[in-house]
């Protein structure tokens, strides 16, 4: 059993109470372009048939965490085995986690410094027994709880949305990347919200990419040298032996 969050986008009105409480609770700097969580607006359709969705953007605490795999210093870890935390006193700010994250979440401020993202309130501590954003949300759009319970609840909400005519409603995060620890009730396809339909672990081709490069060097790029310089050597050897006879 592990703690997770359920983001119910159908309940989110984009008030940014979560953004503000996250900053307060975790001491996130203000005015440096840093936000461990933030709200993004998505507009679908054309006037007069427009729907506006709000989606909370923050780390999804993937079970198969690309950022943790690629981090060169070990600054990214899962202290409790579930939630992904960046040790900001060890992170060198190389940006690899930002390039690897399937959701584009880790980011840098100005000045650049260490990578920034949600730590599941590991840094600031829980507020009233839950994450700061969940505690702050006035609409019940962010629920903190046991992951299994949230999945059950999420499926119920998706059913409700479908009955209301949202045929594409779905629960996002149950299986993606080994299971996200932030789940989403979406009223439409994930791509509508800017979420990847089929997120993949950045290091899925780790061995393949090393092998393809090394084999290219050993076989393909070495070929012209083997063809040309070996032949020249043989010609020279032949000339010497013929000259000697």
């Amino acid at each position, binding site marked *: 059993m592990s703690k997770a969050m359920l983001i119910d986008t159908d309940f989110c009105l984009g008030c940014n109470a979560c953004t503000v409480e996250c900053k307060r609770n975790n001491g996130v700097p203000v005015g440096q372009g840093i936000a461990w969580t933030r709200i993004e607006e998505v507009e679908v359709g054309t006037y007069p048939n427009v729907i506006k969705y709000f989606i909370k953007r923050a780390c999804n605490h993937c079970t198969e965490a690309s950022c943790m795999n690629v981090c060169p210093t070990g600054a990214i870890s899962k202290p409790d085995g579930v939630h992904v935390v960046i040790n900001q006193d060890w*992170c060198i700010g190389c940006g690899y986690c930002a390039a690897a994250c399937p959701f584009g979440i880790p980011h840098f401020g100005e000045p650049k410094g260490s990578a920034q993202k949600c730590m599941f309130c590991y840094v600031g501590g829980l507020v009233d027994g839950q994450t700061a954003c969940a505690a702050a949300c006035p609409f019940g759009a962010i629920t903190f709880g046991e992951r299994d319970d949230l999945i059950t609840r999420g499926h119920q909400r998706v059913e409700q949305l479908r009955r209301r005519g949202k045929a594409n409603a779905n629960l996002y995060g149950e299986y993606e990347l080994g299971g996200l620890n932030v789940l989403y009730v979406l009223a439409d396809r994930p791509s509508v919200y800017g979420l990847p339909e089929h997120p993949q672990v950045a290091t899925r081709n780790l061995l393949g990419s090393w092998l393809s*490069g090394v084999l*290219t060097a050993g076989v393909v790029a070495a070929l012209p*040298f083997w063809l040309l*310089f070996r032949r020249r*050597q043989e010609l020279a050897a032949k000339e010497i032996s013929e000259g000697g006879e």
Partner: protein
Amino acid sequence: MEATTMWGWPIWVYLWAAGVAGGGYFATFLANLFSGRRHKELLQIATWIGVPLVLLGSLLLVIDLGNPFWAWHLFVGFRPLSPMSLGSWILLLWSITAVAMIALWFAEAFEPAEQPTGVFARVASWLQPLAPATEILAWIALVLAVLLITYTGVLLSNTSHLLWATVLLPVLFVVSATSTGMAATLLVSILMGKEISHDFGRAGAILAVLEVLALVSFLVTVPSGVLVTGPLNVWFWVGVVLIGLLVPFGLELWSLRAKAQGVLVLASTLCVLFGGLVLRAVVVIGGQV
């Protein structure tokens, strides 16, 4: 979702520099090996220019960090799953090996009679008994050079940027590193007034063909519109394809027949080096658009 960080010019200049360093060593090692050790001087030149290039590249990497003074954290642990961790160790070990080889070559060639009492003479006399180790070091450096040029592609391909996330990127970067590295070595040796074997022109032409094949297979497997038709298309077609591949291919073939061979090879090396730099630039920038 927008890219949250930009890997800017220090990164693509670094990828190019590391490729030139490792590729130059790789190419000249093979030429020397297959020719029965007749190109040792080129191998030495490649090693000589590789060390400052790797140092320059590493310096660019460090200044691009958010916390540059913590760069040493890279060498506290060894994390083989992280291409950047492995790459940092490869850079460090290749540089150390190359510097050791340069020192041993120096000791080997040193004539004590010229300067019997100086510091150099003492260092050379310490090192001279170790000179046979150069052969072993040269093979170690070869392995590290292959890993180094592969790593520049692996670094980018293990991300979530669609243009980069393919095993064909290391293939492309390895071929490009070999040809740019060879070009840099030839450039320096021509400037030093040395004669260049026609075989290097031929090898360059074959590498250009191989690079075209690698480039085409890369472009058809990734969403490459940003390079081919998008905002970077002029840089791609003029910088990478025309100046980096077609022009040097023509110059290399021409140099096999022409009298002014040196000038043509010189021009082709400059084109190859420029094209290799633009290739790194458009791939790094294009992946983050």
